[in-house]
């Protein structure tokens, strides 16, 4: 999901793009979901292991790993939020997931680059930066949205 906000102040205009996913669970709730699932799976498996079917346990372990991995991967993706501010002199990319990471580039030298996979097997990449230093943005978007965001960013940077 992409939102673009245009702030019009008394002296300058700042365009803000917010790239984030729609999500329903907080990190805390995701952890509780995982713990609940893992506890239920363990109760069942330890019961049968106690009857002598201990070979259920490796499958339980594998399943808990996959469940945990899936919830973690999805939560990471869902909590990735990027705020891109374009004002008169700077382009700032503020990435907040669990920590904030702020990168700024001079607007005059900033470039928006979109890289398409030659074989079409992987999603495209959208990069923004200058002087050889780039950051990836819109990783959690689909290709169409990424392309749309790229066009909007070019418009904002080049002032077209």
């Amino acid at each position: 999901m992409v939102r673009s906000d245009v702030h019009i102040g008394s002296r300058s205009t700042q365009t803000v793009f917010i790239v984030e996913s729609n999500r329903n669970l907080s990190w805390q709730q995701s952890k509780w979901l995982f713990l609940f699932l893992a506890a239920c799976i363990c109760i069942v498996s330890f019961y049968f292991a106690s009857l002598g079917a201990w070979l259920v346990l490796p499958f339980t372990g594998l399943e808990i790993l996959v469940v945990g991995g899936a919830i973690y991967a999805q939560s990471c993706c869902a909590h990735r939020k990027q705020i891109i501010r374009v004002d008169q002199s700077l382009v700032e990319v503020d990435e907040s997931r669990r920590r904030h990471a702020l990168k700024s580039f001079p607007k005059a030298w900033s470039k928006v680059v979109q890289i398409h996979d030659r074989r079409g097997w992987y999603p495209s990449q959208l990069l923004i930066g200058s002087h050889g230093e780039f950051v990836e943005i819109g990783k959690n978007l689909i290709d169409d949205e990424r392309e749309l965001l790229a066009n909007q960013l070019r418009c904002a940077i080049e002032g077209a």
Partner: protein
Amino acid sequence: MSTTTLTHDEAHHHEAPKGWRRWLFSTNHKDIGTLYLLFALIMLFVGGASAMLIRMELFQPGIQLLDPDLYNNLVTNHALIMIFGAVMPAAAGLANWMIPMMIGAPDMALPRMNNLSFWILPAAATMLLLSFVVPFFPGGGTQINTGWTIYPPLSVQVGMSMDFLIFAIHLLGISSVLASINIIVTLLNMRAPGMKMLKMPMFCWTWLVTAFLLILVVPVLAGGVTMLLFDRHFGTSFFDAAGGGDPVLFQHLFWFFGHPEVYILLLPSIGVLSHVIPAFSRKPLFGYNSMVGAMIAVATIGMVVWAHHQYTIGMSLGAVTYFMIGTILISIPVGLMIFNFIATMWRGAMTFETPMLFAVGIVLMFTFGGLSGVMLAVVPADMQYHDSMFVVAHFHYVLMPGAVFGLFAGVFYWLPKWTGHMYDEKLGKLFFWTNVIGFNITFFPQHFLGLAGMPRRIVDYNVMFTEFNVISSVGAMIFGLSHLLLLYIVIKTIRGGKKAESRAWEGAKGLEWELDSPPAFHTWTVAPQIK
């Protein structure tokens, strides 16, 4: 400050990729849903063909077409193909198509895992079919004459086809678990803003509960069949009484999976009914909250009553009493669901298009199957019915209306949405009547056969059972052939027909009906707001 949300340029970017890569590498939930449904349709015909062979053999007493081992191998394959190859993938197909559209999500949470969980299925189906074919080759060993329950010690003794079956079960389990995790994560994390849990469509609720059940029971089955593999090849004695093991342990492991599996097959269809009945009664679903509660109750109780399939193994009186009472208790939430469906129809402006016909058929016939289930739950009665044709009649009355007819209702209900064309209503109704009549002619007489003492899983029978078997076999031919009509209707609808509107049915409610018919390749890229 002004705020805009970026939306798509409708004129471009919606084209689907072309060629075989679209299907092999697809991460699009609609394409994967289509693949699941296509796979299920193929397996329905493969499993149906084995059922036809079984009924042709039973047309007359004596051995006509199949030797006893081959007959039992067909019984085994019919069950496994229908359960794992047809019904579960069909339900997963509906889930893939509908869940993201219903909750306002652009796709499933983990699209690549979605692709993987589908593409494991053809490999598993190949293994399953190999398990049938291998005994025909020199050195292939004996056939799987155990039935789908694969009880040891017989399953330890059969040939290498059992190894193929064990690996097929593992692959099917992996596919189911991956799909379940994906569905849980999607439903819990990707609902449109404002869609609280108790605003979620019932189909999504049923799949959430189903996915939880699958995650809990599949590792137990995986462990059980792996122990079987170890007993067969690595000298262990998990299920060998002579080596200190216990063959009954396998039955517990199997039925801990096998009984919830019934609800895994049933619940998605209950979800479909919860959309079809309100749509064609033009009333909201009666008792949404109680439906959700009943479903959770069915799943929870269903997890802890598995041993009612094993009354005859010699459990303690306390154990059989517990399992009997628990099993009978399930009829309360199931009864509540049926009550809610009837109350939804009560005084509604009902019309009887094909999905609704199937829905009414389900309410009537599934209730009938439920009643024979209560008979089987009672221990002294079950001692008489056990392993008779009565059991075959019972579970077909539960699973055909409860699971398969529900899926048919779903296919006819959503086919206009998927294809953009209305199906031929006359042919749809013809399919319903031939299907339902054929089904009842096939399975109703089997109650009498069972009560008169005809055992199941035996190729020959006493001449006194001939008449009912002839009726049953004739019914099976009608029933089986009627599915060719389904195939024709589906192909005809895909190829063309009257254009379907976005809201194909007047009484249909839900986010999926806000989208075009057929929907764009990507939908809900901007999440809708639910009030």
